[in-house]
């Protein structure tokens, strides 16, 4: 089947999509957007987190056909051209990235948190990121990065 939806502000169509295929597969394998990572395929790890109509979801658990006519924003759509989003900048500066596999999902999820809660408490950050697994960093630098991004966004 054919699936058409808006990705990062641009309308895209994928042809020959299998009906049981996930949104994640379509993004990575058909639309050339490999930022969202494919790891657990069961919603456990959060590395495929994308916005679906402004709500963060695991793209591996969305059937591609369910995205028909909707808006998707992936990690590739966070930056404004060459200008990184403050969340992305903070991850780089804080050393919140090691192997990098979990990073795209964490960026989208952290981005959503700061959109909803500009000055989150540590408990709120931990809760928001509870579904994003990182096996390298031990999370401390990720928490540092979210705190820094929150501070920068709040102070303009």
């Amino acid at each position, binding site marked *: 089947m054919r699936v058409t939806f808006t990705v990062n502000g641009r309308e895209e169509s994928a042809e020959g999509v299998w009906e049981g295929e996930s949104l994640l597969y379509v993004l990575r394998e058909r639309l050339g957007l490999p930022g969202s990572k494919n790891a657990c395929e*069961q919603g456990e790890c959060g590395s495929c987190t994308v916005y679906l109509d402004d709500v963060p979801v695991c793209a591996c658990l969305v059937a591609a*056909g369910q995205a028909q006519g909707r808006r998707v924003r992936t990690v590739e759509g966070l930056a404004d051209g060459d200008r990184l989003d403050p969340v992305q900048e903070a991850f780089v500066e804080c050393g919140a990235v090691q192997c990098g596999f979990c990073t795209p999902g964490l960026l989208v*999820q952290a981005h959503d948190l700061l959109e909803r809660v500009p000055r989150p408490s540590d408990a709120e950050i931990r*809760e928001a990121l509870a579904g994003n697994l990182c096996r390298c960093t031990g999370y401390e630098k990720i928490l540092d990065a979210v705190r820094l991004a929150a501070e920068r966004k709040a102070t303009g």
Partner: protein
Amino acid sequence: MDFLRPTTWEEALAAKADQPEAVPIQGGTDVMVEINFDLRRPPALLDLGGVAELREWSMTGGHCRLGAGVPYAAVIDELGGPLPGLAQASRTVGSPQIRNRGTVGGNLGAASPAGDSHPPLLAARAVVEVESAARGVRMIPAAEFYLGVKRSALEPDELIRAVHVPPATGPQYFSKVGTRNAMVIAVCSFAIALHPRERRVGTGIGSAAPTPRRALEAEELLAAELDWDAPLDPALLRRFGELSARAAAPIDDVRGTAAYRVHAIGVMARRTLTWAWNDHLEKRAA
């Protein structure tokens, strides 16, 4: 595989009548896992995401009619007051991403004994509204809905429209055992709901039997012996824990042993009743 995309409830019922083997998909948090892992190859997926009325809830006839497509995130944000037990259980589901997509209706459709919504629905005496094009609406009490491991009273041509939950008239609590505070499938769980007007206590046991179930003898014990004006009698509390544990019929599996689950159900029964009773007495004193 077909991908069916109804945009109204009538279209959805017609599609299910036409292809009873079509698997309904809402948030996808169960169905897509099975497809991704090649555990299921249904001839058709019936996407209910386009049926807007399923995503609404309303207070009608003294009940909260919770549409089958309302995500856990909305239950948490909007229904913590009238449905505190269900909202507590919803907070323990998966992760924020899962709670943004997963629904109580989907939990009912999957009918896993470990589903987090089931114990609070049982304790609150919820009723499941199902419908088919041929026979119309059926109202099935939650206690009669679960028939076996991942089996429910839903007929092949029926879809879950909503679940009707009476708003709380007393304290409600949900407790769940798992290895961390997020992303946990229950090792076992327990829900309690005090119904002070009827002087009854509702219970729900999760992940400790082939189906979610009430602890009936434990409920009867409290109906017979609980003094609603007094502090909780420690002997009665202990007996309640014992009868709740006896209502469980768990198995050994990767998440825990049967013996552990029986023990934990007893502990959670005592704890949740204690929490609820403290609230009950506080409210009376106020």
